[in-house]
């Protein structure tokens, strides 16, 4: 499902102009990372995707739906949004119930809900914890419950707001494998992140925001090599990319493997 954002401007009631004319097209099945300093407008932008915020000017289309004409609950059929803090949404007695809450709201038939819950439990490695109380789990696993509760809604578009914040390496790896699986299934995934390595290793398209505008938009390689523009919004390229740049490698590298390949080519040349 396509996302079409046209000249989106948003002003908060307190007068802060958070988005100044953002236009983006995100095609079905794309993996997109959004990066930029705090206050750049990243969260404000993605809150427009499911109607939590409505444009002051411009418009946002999710497929053929204009977000201004549909309620948040309705848009939840198309856009799943994983909030930063899982504690702000968990309320049931068991993990499985928590995961079933979203699909039940969407009115799916019983059998489909069961399959979706099983699938979400499997993707997040929560199968053995299904009947535990979410609050008895560690914060990293609570995060997985929150992720699973959105996965089970089976929406064509998924938004993650800083999924790796406060997560250990194992949890970050799980998130990476979930995102890879979502890509295989043809879902559109947007992720806000400050974790630049996570961004470089898992996303094809990177959008850089600063001051309520899109500063850069392109493939990870195109974007992450532009140190100067990234510095405007206080983002450092991944260490491996900077090392490649300092060594004067001809191409921009984003992962250790790419670095090794490029370095080998240079040595043998």
């Amino acid at each position, binding site marked *: 499902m396509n996302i079409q954002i046209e000249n989106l401007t948003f002003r*908060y009631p*307190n007068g*802060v102009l*958070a988005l100044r004319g953002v236009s983006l097209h995100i095609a079905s099945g794309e993996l997109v990372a959004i990066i930029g300093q705090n*206050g750049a407008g990243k969260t*404000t932008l993605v*809150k427009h995707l*499911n109607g*939590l915020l409505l444009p002051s000017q411009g418009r946002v289309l999710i497929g053929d739906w204009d977000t201004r004409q549909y*309620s*948040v*609950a309705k848009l*939840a*059929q198309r*856009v*799943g*949004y994983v*909030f930063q*803090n899982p*504690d*702000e*949404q*968990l*309320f*049931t007695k068991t993990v499985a119930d928590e995961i079933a*809450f*979203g699909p039940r*709201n*969407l009115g799916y038939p019983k059998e489909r809900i069961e399959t979706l819950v099983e699938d979400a439990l499997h993707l997040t490695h929560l199968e053995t914890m299904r009947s535990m109380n979410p*609050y008895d789990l560690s914060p990293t696993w609570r995060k997985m419950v929150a992720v699973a*509760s*959105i996965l089970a*809604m089976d929406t064509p578009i998924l938004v993650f707001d800083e999924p790796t914040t406060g997560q250990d390496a194992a949890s970050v790896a799980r998130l990476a494998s979930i995102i890879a699986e979502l890509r295989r299934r043809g879902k559109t995934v947007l992720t806000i992140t400050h974790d630049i390595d996570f961004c470089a290793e898992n996303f094809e398209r990177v959008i850089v925001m600063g001051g309520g505008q899109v500063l850069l938009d392109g493939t990870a390689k195109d974007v992450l090599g532009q140190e100067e523009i990234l510095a405007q919004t206080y983002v450092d390229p991944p260490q491996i990319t900077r090392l490649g740049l300092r060594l004067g490698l001809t191409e921009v590298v984003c992962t250790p493997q790419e670095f090794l390949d490029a370095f080998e080519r240079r040595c043998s040349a």
Partner: protein
Amino acid sequence: MHERLSFYIKRDSPLHRLNPLTKLTLIFGLILPAFLVPFYWTPHLLLIVVVFPLAFLGRVQREYFAASARLILPVAGFLFVMQALFIPGGETVLAKAWFLTLTKESLMFAFANAMRIMVMVSSFTLFMLTTHPSELMSDLTQRGLPGQFAYVIIATLQIIPQMQAKANTIIAAQRSRGLDTESSFARRIRALVPLVGPLVFGSLVEVEERAIAIEARGFTSSRPKTSLREIVDRPLDKGLRWFLLFVMLAALLSRIWFS
């Protein structure tokens, strides 16, 4: 983005620059005369001659009048109607309908009472708008108020805006999961459970975290503490406080004298 954590509005004005204790005294310097001085027009005059100009002096007139319209007027208005209709006595009958009589005396009495309420709530509103809660607390603890008291007061002042901010995030998160909070009444009632759970639990966790955080900074230590905030107490403040004390005393005496 930034949720307001108190009613305080950061501006630079003579009222903002006053010492918090002076402003606290000012509240009582307004309320006591409004209630005690037996001269009929006292509360009305205080409101027009002192409170309104103070709102302009503090450069918070817009917020002050907005708050008054939403907060004070309905209460004062209700009181006015109740008292005007149900206070017995009074000879000059103005209107009569069914068992209700409206006399000139009860009308005047009700009007004065409504004005007293206005003065009382107004002066508190002005105080809250121009005084940062932590400035007030720093000042009072430096003058010897026990820290525990200060904490209770400041936590009370801040809990509503904090809970509100938290509730808004929770509502947004659950609506994103397809929770319908907008249609029929029955659905809204059912929608409460997923909202109240995280709110209550989150608040409890927050209380614990806060207790640990302040204890980590030596909250219950009995040694004298220094403060990061320098709170100015100018001679003007001291003078004003003495003057206000005199006003309060005069109000009390006038009450005793004339009745």
